[in-house]
């Protein structure tokens, strides 16, 4: 299956805005994050939050074909 990855803030600076990935069916968000950290260990220092199709999810969330998966640090909007 293919999913679209998106990165924001510190993660965007390290990994770019995003990319498409081919994954095995049933891959969880947490497993995908672990594989990203293996590829680029420096990002493992970032506290990360996950969203799938614009909704927050836990690491155990299973991905599906066509999902948009966003990785970002804790938010800091507001004045």
């Amino acid at each position, binding site marked *: 299956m293919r999913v679209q990855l998106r990165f924001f803030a510190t993660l965007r600076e390290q990994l770019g805005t995003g990319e498409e990935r081919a994954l095995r069916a049933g891959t969880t968000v947490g497993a995908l994050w672990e594989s990203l950290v293996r590829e680029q260990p420096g990002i493992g*220092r970032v*506290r990360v939050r996950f969203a799938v199709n614009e909704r927050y999810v836990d690491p155990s969330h299973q991905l599906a074909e066509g999902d948009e998966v*966003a990785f970002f640090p*804790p*938010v*800091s*909007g*507001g*004045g």
Partner: protein
Amino acid sequence: MAELFEIGKARIEVERLLAAVADPATGATVLFLGTTRNQNAGRRVTRLEYEAYATMAKREMRELAREARRRWPIKRVAMSHRIGVVPVGESSVAIAVSAGHRDEAFTACHWLIDRLKEIVPIWKKEHFRGGTVWIGPQQGSPEPPRRLRVNRGG
């Protein structure tokens, strides 16, 4: 007037938010503005720079407005967050709430800005004299660079 939940690079136009929450049944309107200040944690701030996951951020703002209307007898909510560079003295966020009476308008508006800062996917990078730093608990490491350690923004 249509709902107003927006993320954009332009200066926030307060009048548009006030128009969006105007309603003849309301007797109180509360407007919160979050503004770039010239210092933070001992640093001389020159500007802030915001980034958003815009589609999700607008969805989350709508959800917060719905939740606020469930919790308090308020009438309308409008929220606007600026992205890109926000110079000192200009507003990065505006929230307007209208209600029959002031107590619920104040309470809901306070709750909305607190929740926005907790869950709406927007990030703030502070530019100060001598460097830049992303604001918020971005680093999970127990010992981030001391000089850049910041627990809370805004």
